[in-house]
């Protein structure tokens, strides 16, 4: 793995280039969320219709594979690329998956990290986690962490930092030859603990950092200070990854603080709800003072295709959008699919929403490269308030 920072804008925000596996990805970038390695709805043969190379970074939680597939079998097959038939993609393994493998801080103990999963509550020891990493062979993986929500006691929080650092050292010592390792940084909502953890991890031999324990109950207002406490202690030249920041405003917040890679469940939740992103990706439209009137009620950034107003709407979700869904199908058809509970609805929505959200990231990178990130962020937040 190689990472180079190319441009800065207004302090923390930076644009960079990440060389991972066979891909060259511009940052800030988005990790697409998966279930057992494949997108939730999009069929693997339709993945190639998403913009490349931005769509090639996939987030994988190794814990997904504990259901029905042994690590030995995955090893025998040859790791994730062989298992999933995705040879052009890069896998980023983080133990937590914000949709279905949530950290269960109450059950985590000195032996391992506990997660609430569809196959029950699982306790994962560092050595077990590393077995998963060496079997699945992702290009990039984060060390096992004790992630705690914002409301735990100071004592519990301090323990989580000590444990996370101990597990980091354990994971690194068992580390397989291939794959870049990102050190996990926790600390809950305590600025002190966040700083302490970051300073410790910064001394370890890792390729980058995973800012864990966020998106677990802290408010958006608390977050900038926590992020800054962490980032200030980290070297500039190594990339930073974060999970659990979903909404566009949260992503912008993370970028302003200096985060480079994001795992977000925004697309998944939008898709499940029947929503499609429609906010304009054209800079000139964002600058326009007059708001485009929305079809349905309060939120002009997205439309809910279940609404009856779309029954006869033969326009695509977004006019001019080049995604597979907008090139081939109408709002009316997707409305019908949602009404009759057909899986194709989610497939088409996930394609469009992914395409659109990746477009949002492209706008961000353009703004950073042009030195106007703060302006972009202000306009965006203002516009969609």
């Amino acid at each position, binding site marked *: 793995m190689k990472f180079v920072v190319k441009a800065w804008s207004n302090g923390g925000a930076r644009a960079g280039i990440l060389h991972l596996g066979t891909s060259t990805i511009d940052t800030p970038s988005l990790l697409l969320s998966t279930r057992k390695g494949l997108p939730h709805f999009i069929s*693997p*043969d*339709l993945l190639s219709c998403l913009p490349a190379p931005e769509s090639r970074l996939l987030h994988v939680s190794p814990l997904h594979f504990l259901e029905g*597939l042994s690590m030995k*079998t995955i090893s025998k*097959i040859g790791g994730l690329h062989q298992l999933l*038939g995705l040879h052009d993609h890069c896998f980023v393994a983080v133990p937590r998956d914000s949709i279905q493998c949530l950290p269960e801080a109450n059950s985590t103990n000195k032996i391992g990290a506990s997660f609430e999963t569809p196959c029950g509550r699982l306790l994962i020891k560092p050595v077990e986690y590393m077995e998963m990493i060496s079997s699945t062979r992702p290009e990039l993986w984060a060390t096992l962490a004790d992630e705690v929500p914002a409301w735990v006691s100071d004592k519990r929080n301090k323990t989580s930092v000590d444990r996370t650092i101990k597990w980091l050292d354990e994971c690194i010592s068992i580390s397989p030859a291939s794959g870049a390792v990102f050190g996990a940084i926790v600390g809950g909502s305590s600025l002190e603990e966040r700083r302490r953890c970051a300073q410790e991890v910064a001394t370890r031999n890792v390729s980058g950092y995973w800012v864990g324990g966020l998106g677990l109950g802290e408010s958006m207002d608390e977050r900038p200070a926590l992020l800054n406490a962490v980032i200030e202690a980290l070297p500039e030249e190594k990339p930073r990854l974060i999970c659990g920041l979903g909404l566009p405003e949260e992503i912008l917040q993370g970028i302003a603080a200096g985060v480079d890679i994001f795992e977000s469940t925004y697309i998944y939740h939008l898709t499940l709800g029947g929503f499609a992103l429609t906010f304009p990706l054209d800079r000139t439209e964002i600058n326009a003072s007059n708001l485009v009137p929305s079809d349905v009620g309060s939120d002009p950034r997205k439309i809910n295709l279940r609404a009856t107003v779309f029954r006869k709407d033969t326009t695509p979700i977004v006019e001019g959008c080049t995604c597979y869904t907008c090139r081939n199908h109408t709002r009316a058809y997707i409305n019908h699919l949602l*009404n*009759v509970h*057909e899986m194709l609805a989610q497939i088409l929505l996930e394609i469009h929403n992914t395409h659109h959200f990746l477009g949002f990231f492209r706008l961000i990178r353009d703004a950073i490269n042009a030195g106007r990130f703060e302006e972009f962020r202000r306009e965006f937040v203002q516009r969609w308030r």
Partner: protein
Amino acid sequence: MALRFEVLGRFNRARAAQLTLPHFVCQTPLFMPVGTQGTIKGLATDQLEEIGCQIILGNTYHLALRPTSELIDELGGLHKFMNWPRALLTDSGGFQMSPVDGKPMLLTPEESIQIQNRIGADIIMALDDVVKTTITGPRIEEAMYRTLRWIDRCIAAHKRPHDQNLFGIVQGGLDPVLRDICVRGLVDRNLPGYAIGGLAGGEDKDSFWRVVAQCTATLPEDKPRYVMGVGYPLDIVVCSALGADMYDCVYPTRTARFGTALVPEGVLKLKHRAMAEDTRPIDPTCACMVCKNYTRAYIHSLVTKDSKGSQLLSFHNLYYMMQLSRNLHSSIVQGKFPEFVCNFLQKMVKCVMV
């Protein structure tokens, strides 16, 4: 008449043909997947083309309910609504009479044809009076004569004979005399094509193939024959040998949702524990993207809990059925039909489950 049917090759009663429909030029024998509500579960139109689907079936009853045939018509027909560039066939809507919303529905021949005219499929089916083959008694005769009376009403109500082909359906249960009367009655009406209905509902195989054989022997040579509700690969091979051309069934996609894959040896149950360690593809002889990329072990991990598994299995199962169709067509054209059938049967009867 809005179709052309040209026989390209024969072996005894089996025939391979080119069926030219308003939206697509098809090759028979062919299998038609069922896309009940204007979509085939979990598959996009690009994938259906990739798989080689030629004609897709839409259920008139379901579409009339949601989003309604009037809406489909207003938006330019089902082809445009779904964005399916190839051919479509709609059934009469009479088969699914059990209401989804609790309201009893009375469907007349006129209404059925009107709805199908609005939907706009290349082939539409006459409303027939279907009875189960397991029933005996005067009800079967009553249904057969009613089907003949209704075909005239369907023909009269049909407003688009220039771009939609109305197929008549032969009824008569398992009674050869009744079947014969029905065939003659329909043939007299000189329809673009004929279906053999009322089968695939629980009768024993010996009765099933006899009815198919009798019908194909007496239906006109130069028009397509469609055996409704068939089905299992073996049944398709047998019916093709007897001279049928078109088939439809929910089986491949339905069985995919239960974790079952179609393979040359029969079926493969991916939910079975033994699959968890099996690193072979579902079918090493299959060229579909599922068999080229995935192991039984991985698919096993998907089918027990996720819908992703059924999506991939539907893809494979439909590919299997379309490959079977392609093989039937090309083996007849190339004069290798008996070898194909022997090969097919040998693989299938060797074992029941892998």
